[in-house]
C-alpha cells in the first residue's frame, strides 16, 4: 500500500473515533450540580429526597406533618422567602421539632411515647366521665366530695 493511502486511512479512522467519542459524550447525563443550598440530603439508604414534582400544599400549612412536611420543604422555603409569614412560621416550628427528633435516642423515644400514652389515657378517662351521665353523677357525688 502506498504511503498516502496509509495516511488517509489513519486520518479517516481518527475522524471516525472523534465523531464516535463526541456522540457518546453527548449522551452522558450531565453531572448533577452540587447545590450548596439543597435542603434534603440524598440518603438513598435511608429515605428518598423530597419528590421533584410540584407538591400541592394545604391551605393550612401547619397541618403538614412528617413525610408531607419533608416533601414540602422546598416549596415552603420558596413561600417563606417570598413573604408568606405562615410558611416561615411553619418552617421555623417544624424544623425546630426536627432538630429535637434527630437527637433522640431510642430510650428517649420510648420515654416520650410512654408520656404521651399516659396523657392519652388520662384524657380518655376524663372524657369518659364527662360524657357518661352515670359516671358523671358518680363522679360528682362520690369522687369529688
Amino acid at each position, binding site marked *: 500500500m502506498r504511503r498516502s493511502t496509509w495516511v488517509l486511512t489513519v486520518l479517516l479512522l481518527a475522524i471516525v473515533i472523534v465523531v464516535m467519542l463526541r456522540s457518546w459524550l453527548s449522551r452522558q447525563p450531565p453531572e448533577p450540580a452540587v447545590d450548596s443550598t439543597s435542603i434534603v440530603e440524598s440518603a438513598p439508604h435511608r429515605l428518598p429526597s423530597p419528590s421533584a414534582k410540584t407538591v400541592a400544599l394545604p391551605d393550612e400549612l401547619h397541618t403538614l406533618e412528617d413525610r408531607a412536611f419533608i416533601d414540602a420543604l422546598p416549596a415552603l422555603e420558596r413561600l417563606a422567602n417570598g413573604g408568606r409569614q405562615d410558611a416561615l412560621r411553619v418552617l421555623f416550628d417544624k*424544623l425546630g421539632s426536627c432538630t429535637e427528633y434527630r437527637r433522640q435516642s431510642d430510650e428517649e*423515644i420510648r420515654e416520650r411515647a410512654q408520656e404521651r400514652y399516659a396523657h392519652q389515657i388520662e384524657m380518655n378517662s376524663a372524657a369518659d366521665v364527662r360524657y357518661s351521665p352515670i359516671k358523671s353523677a358518680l363522679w360528682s357525688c362520690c369522687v369529688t366530695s
Partner: protein
Amino acid sequence: MLRDQLIRSGVERRELCAAVTPRMLDKRLELARLALARGDRSIVLMLAGPGSFRQTPPERMRNVHQLLALRRDLTEAVQRRVAGCDRRVMHRAAFGSYRQSPILELDPAAAIAYATAYDASAPDPADGDSTMAQVIADAAAQLPPAAVEQARQRGLQFVADHCTLR
C-alpha cells in the same frame, strides 16, 4: 397497641428528620431573623421564652455569628414591642433576660426593668403577677442595690413613656 404505635411514630419521625440537612436546620436562624425583620410577634415571644432554640455546642460554634446577629435583632424587636406597651412581651422578656431565653443576653437589670414595667402597666393594680415579683427578687440578688433601683426606675419610665395608664 397505642404505645407501640407511638414508639414507631417516634422512630419514623427521627428517620425523616435525619434526611434534613444540618444546613437546613441551621437555616432556622435565618428564618428567625427574617421573621423578626417582618415584625412577627409570635417569633419574638417564642425566642424570648425558654427552650425555643436549643443548640448543641458544635451547632453554636458553627453559627456563632448568626446567633449574635439574632440576639441583636431579638433585643431590638423586644424593645420595639415594649415601646408599644406589649405586656406579653414584657412578661416573656423578663423571664428571658433573667435566665430562660437561649437567645437573649442574660441581663438581670433588664429582667427587673421588664418585670417592673409589666406590673406597673397592669390595667388593674390587683392584677400583680407573683412570678414577676419572684423574677425581680431573684435578679435583684445578683445586683448591687443602686443598680436594682436604677433598673426599677427604667421599668417605670418605660410605662410612663409608652403606656396609656388607667
